[in-house]
């Protein structure tokens, strides 16, 4: 008789696994990618391709020559990081800067901690924030969305809605600026911004995919949006000429991209429902705080990274135990 496997129970496994999760995340990001390719043309496609290729290559090299372990690129997580990094930069970013970003994201953000699952911070955001601090000019020169025909070089650049707002200093002047898009344009993605963040509708399709396949739960996106809406709403009610309304905040910058794809990164977010709710809510509040009172017009990346650092603390919140003794006293 041939050999029998003897192993501990359980002997069956759910069909879900890390690779499947990563594939679904990639699928969910595709609508936003297509939208940006349509808006920014070949520039977006180039940024996308280079970022993904660089992330895969760096992970493979580091794993092979520095960590000397089995290749991990087969789990698709490097592709996800590459896509997220591309989503977070302008489509006309010089390639060499982008490659450095990929190296920082994979090398420092992920592999230095031991690879997938060990990183406390979202790797793509580590890369992005590094670039933002090192090359602020290139990282904040936004091409105008011209449609599919836009040339690879010499694109016309323009400010983002959040940039206009920060520049103007108050809502009345900002809204009066002819460069300011209206809400419908913002919703569909006809505004300057990073590759993946411009189209709310494409991001909504993506998050629907993530929720329906149960890759993420509603807790982080909903609480983050709630935190942002409540805080910006309160400010707006105090003085609508100084502080812009919550809808503007939702539709501009990386708010939705962050809420759907970056704050929800399972590795760098809390484990329990209550932990997730606090985590999301605080990111929303911090984002508005930075946007309104900080030096940068945009604050999603910083807010997420700050809250990533609090995750070990939030993980101290224990789930409710079955049959936990009621303390008499």
């Amino acid at each position: 008789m041939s050999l029998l496997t003897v192993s501990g129970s359980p002997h069956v496994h759910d069909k879900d696994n890390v690779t499947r999760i990563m594939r679904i995340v990639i699928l969910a990001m595709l609508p936003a990618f297509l939208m940006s390719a349509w808006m920014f043309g070949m520039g977006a496609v180039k940024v996308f391709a280079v970022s993904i290729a660089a992330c895969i290559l760096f992970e493979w090299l580091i794993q092979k020559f520095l960590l000397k372990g089995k290749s991990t690129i087969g789990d698709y997580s490097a592709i996800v990081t590459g896509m997220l990094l591309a989503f977070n930069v302008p489509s006309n970013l010089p390639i060499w800067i982008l490659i450095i970003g990929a190296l920082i994201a994979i090398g420092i953000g992920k592999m230095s901690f031991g690879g997938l699952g060990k990183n406390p911070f979202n790797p793509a955001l580590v890369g992005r924030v590094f670039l933002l601090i090192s090359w602020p000019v290139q990282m904040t020169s936004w091409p105008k969305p011209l449609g599919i025909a836009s040339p690879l070089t010499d694109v016309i650049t323009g400010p983002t809605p959040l940039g206009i707002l920060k520049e103007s200093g108050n809502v009345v002047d900002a809204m009066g600026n002819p460069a300011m898009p209206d809400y419908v344009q913002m919703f569909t993605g006809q505004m300057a911004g990073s590759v993946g963040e411009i189209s709310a509708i494409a991001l909504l399709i993506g998050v629907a995919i993530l929720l329906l396949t149960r890759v993420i739960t509603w807790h982080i996106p909903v609480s983050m949006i709630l935190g942002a809406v409540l805080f910006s709403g309160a400010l707006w009610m105090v003085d609508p000429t100084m502080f812009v309304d919550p809808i503007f905040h939702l539709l501009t910058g990386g708010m939705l991209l962050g809420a759907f794809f970056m704050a929800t990164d399972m590795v760098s977010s809390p484990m329990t429902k209550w932990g997730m709710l606090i985590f999301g809510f605080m990111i929303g509040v911090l984002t508005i705080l930075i946007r309104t009172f900080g030096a940068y017009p945009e604050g999603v990346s910083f807010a997420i990274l700050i809250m990533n650092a609090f995750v070990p603390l939030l993980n101290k919140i224990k789930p409710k135990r079955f049959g936990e003794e009621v303390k008499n006293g």
Partner: protein
Amino acid sequence: MLKTFKLGGVHPAENKLSEHKAIEAIEAPEKIYVPLGQNLGAPSVAIVQKGDKLKTGQLIAKGEAFISASLHSPVSGTVEKIDTHVDASGYRRDTIIINREGDEWEEGIDLSKDLIKEITASSEEIIEKVKACGIVGLGGATFPTHVKLMIPKDKKAEYLIINAVECEPYLTADHQLMLEKGDEILVGVQILMKAIKVDKAIIGIENNKPDAIEHMNKVASNFAGITIQGLKVKYPQGAEKQLIKACVNREVPSGKLPIEVGCVVQNVGTAFAVYEAVQKNKPLIERIVSVTGKNISKPSNFQARVGTPISLLLEKAGGMPEDTGKIINGGPMMGKAINSIDIPVTKGCSGILLMDKKEALRATEYNCVRCGRCTTVCPMGLEPFLLGLAGENLNWEIAEKENIMDCIECGSCQFTCPSGRPLLDNIRLGKYKVGQIIRNRKN
């Protein structure tokens, strides 16, 4: 209204391949192997010797310790020897080996099919009888039933809860038993109610067995105090604490027994065995075993004598498929993989499940991606990734602090983990170690 437990739980594919297959009694083979350690607790002590002539149902080993159970000869014949033989643990253990000669039953055992409804025995007599007949929990736990029926002096039972959930995928023995022996089961339930002096019993059945719910409801209308409770399908609803939570919405405190909340739980198969013991004087020498698996040509529900080698069951189910990679004694979530088809059927054997080489492989392992899904599905509200890590790092302090002893080893965490972490392997090790540490501290 369907009920269920609140915290955690998973939905493994049900694969009830042997569903609605009529119970088929199989003739005992020429040689029978009766292991002495078949119940939870101390093994039984043999009282027969090589060469002794036996009748079917004759006492052959006594349960002498407080938590132990008696054994009876499953066939008539001669004791060949008392030797070691491989059992479900994979080790060779003390076993009474009997050469069968015909099937001559011990005097006083009623083999007729007549239903005896009237219960004449008193509570004490019932418990004595259950003990004398060697009844143990037939759901797989094999805890001696008479011990469970002895309610501590300072406690009072309020509900008898009958576990007819059969939440393990593949297994169908309890389902089929309910369809075929509904009346006997309900008399058994009444006997158990009398034993623990309660007037309310709840039979919990998951609604993937609508015919069983309907049938039992019909039969139950002839009996006072018995409710059939339909339950939403969710694993591990058959775990004692989860079943109590689902049926009467009470939570057994950590480290305590069901009687703490006024409940006693018995398996539906046990109720049938109790009926046969008390009304028919028949000891526990046979049980229903589902033999199943995707490659089995004839998935079946067999009635087999204890001591029948599993190889015979497989033969009757159409033979062992070529590419069998794993054989499981029990269900796929909590059953034990066995390493030989020579092992005999024991009192706790609810099913034999075969998996092919591909199914036998575990999921690919990745680093823990901290998704928290193990925590979400844990029915005990634990954090399995922490417990698993504590086991991996041999850190027993953390394991104890994180309540590793609460784990019911249901396997939901490992089933769910997208990284294929061997969580329960490490948790089992941790439970074993922490259990030792706690015992040493007490001494």
